[in-house]
């Protein structure tokens, strides 16, 4: 929106701040404040110290952070592979079948994640597909949940990709596999990294399906935060939440660096 007068521009900023600060910034600031506190009975938290963080970066919490990072990385790589593969295959289909496939891939998002968790739990609790009680059932559920996003963003990028590139490559003698590796995937790289970042962030924060599935030796961070707040340790929970937030943002920042290098236009 183009706003010309100075007064109107200030007004737009004011509206933005009124909407943005209470909705998005304040809750995060409150968590940040609470993470350093021991009491919060007045307007502001009191008894500032870093004991919460000492607890949040060692032992159980550190273990959970590693678990979350490993789960999110594995799930988003798997989702990216499956989603990209499906999107590439879907692009070659006729429109009617492509729509059907798109709809199938959106299912895990459309269905509440509790239901996804439950169905994964029921499906993989008996031999020969016995994953219940292992870390793989958590990773599997996360993969199922985030594949939809990977598929969606990659297939959107494929539709935007000018077919002239692959045709030029084919006319230069490149077989389909070479066209894919040397031309299409490199051109899709910016959207692939964007999709990877999205999947990673979603997996890092996943709680509802994870709650139904996690084995005792594979507790991701969100479960730990939930457990901490559930037993009343609000300030420790906040510190763990800040650690979760920082770790996620750090990874997203690294991914976006790769992205800038990969975008050509």
């Amino acid at each position: 929106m183009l706003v010309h007068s100075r007064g109107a521009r200030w007004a737009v900023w004011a509206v933005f701040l009124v909407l943005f600060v209470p909705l998005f910034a304040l809750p995060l600031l409150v968590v940040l404040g609470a993470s350093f506190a021991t009491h919060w009975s007045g307007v502001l938290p009191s008894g500032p110290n870093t004991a919460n963080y000492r607890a949040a970066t060692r032992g159980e919490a550190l273990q959970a952070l590693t678990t979350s990072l490993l789960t999110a990385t594995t799930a988003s790589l798997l989702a990216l592979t499956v989603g990209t593969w499906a999107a590439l295959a879907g692009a070659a289909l006729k429109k009617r079948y492509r729509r059907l496939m798109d709809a199938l891939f959106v299912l895990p998002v459309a269905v509440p994640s509790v239901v996804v968790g439950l169905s994964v739990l029921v499906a993989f609790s008996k031999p020969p597909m016995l994953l219940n009680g292992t870390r793989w059932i958590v990773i599997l559920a996360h993969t199922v949940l985030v594949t939809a996003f990977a598929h969606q963003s990659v297939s959107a990028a494929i539709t935007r990709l000018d077919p002239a590139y692959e045709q030029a490559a084919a006319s230069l003698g490149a077989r389909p596999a070479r066209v894919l590796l040397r031309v299409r995937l490199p051109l899709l790289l910016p959207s692939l990294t964007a999709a990877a970042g999205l999947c990673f962030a979603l997996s890092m924060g996943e709680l509802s399906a994870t709650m139904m599935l996690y084995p005792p030796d594979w507790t991701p961070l969100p479960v730990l935060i939930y457990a901490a707040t559930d037993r009343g340790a609000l300030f420790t929970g906040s510190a763990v939440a800040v650690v979760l937030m920082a770790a996620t943002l750090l990874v997203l920042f690294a991914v976006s660096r790769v992205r800038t290098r990969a975008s050509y236009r």
Partner: protein
Amino acid sequence: MGIRFDSVTVAYDGNVVLDSLDLTVEPGEVMALLGPSGSGKTTALRAVAGFVRPVSGRVLLGGRDVTDLPPYQRGIGMVVQSYALFPHMRVDENVAFGLKTRRAGKTETRQRVAEALELTGMAAYARRHPRELSGGQQQRVAIARALAIRPDVLLLDEPLSALDARLRSGMLAELARLHRELPDMSMLYVTHDQVEALTLADRIAVMDAARLQQCGTPRELYRSPKNEFTASFVGGANVLPVTVGCGGVGFAGTELKVDTGNAVAGARATLCVRPHVIGLGQGPNQLTGVVREIQWRGATHRLYVEVDGHSVMADVRELKDPPALGDPVSLHFAAEDAVLLPAGAGHE
């Protein structure tokens, strides 16, 4: 290597976009496919490249049936309007792409890349990325990339359409020079611009409504069009509905003396007269009308004259004292400058 279209028909969902095209491009020849958008010219080119499958008919390259071959086995060079340079590769990597897929050796690749860039005058830009180049430079790189694999056939799909007018005439001269330097390479050149076709092509195939209208040398098309479409699309001729008489034709109540050939007296026919052969003032084959529109084009004036309800275009040398709108004027043309077509003359 020559190209042959043998009754090639292409349809999308039952919609015929190319209707049994028969056309032969001789080895070393430059053939232009000229027509408006939707005429099927690009489809014909894509059928040669292998990007569309004909529903019937065959495409032959150098006598070999390639109808069922995938694009990557056809060994054809192709240049498109959008250049389609790979943005993630440098200029030299773009040009080397086709050589690497052919597993050419390192020295050979380097040598041929240098050669192709030299040929298109882009040697100084080898290490740049496509986004750092202007449109004209990108098109040169695209041509170099297509030439590096030393194709026997080069397909050009509206290669100059994205360039501005000045660059376009420069590139046209470049393409003509390229063809002189690579005389064995056949070129199929798709364009909607008659100037490009007339300048560059040995022969022109005029297309309209999915069909070939006429194929011949530029001079043939210009001097003796076989139907109204060719006459008006190539050179923008006036097409006037006339009735054949004895030793002439009747138009708007006037008797015009033109060669009627073997047309039967009394038949309806179409008279094609190019605007630049029409003169202003008294003369043989005179028409009188009223000036409806006048355009100054530098060296010439174009007059739109209404003669008995028909608009007649005339290009005359720049007038010192041009007529005003609504003025009555006389036009005339020499008998040998007009071509008479039987009414409803169809395609070839």
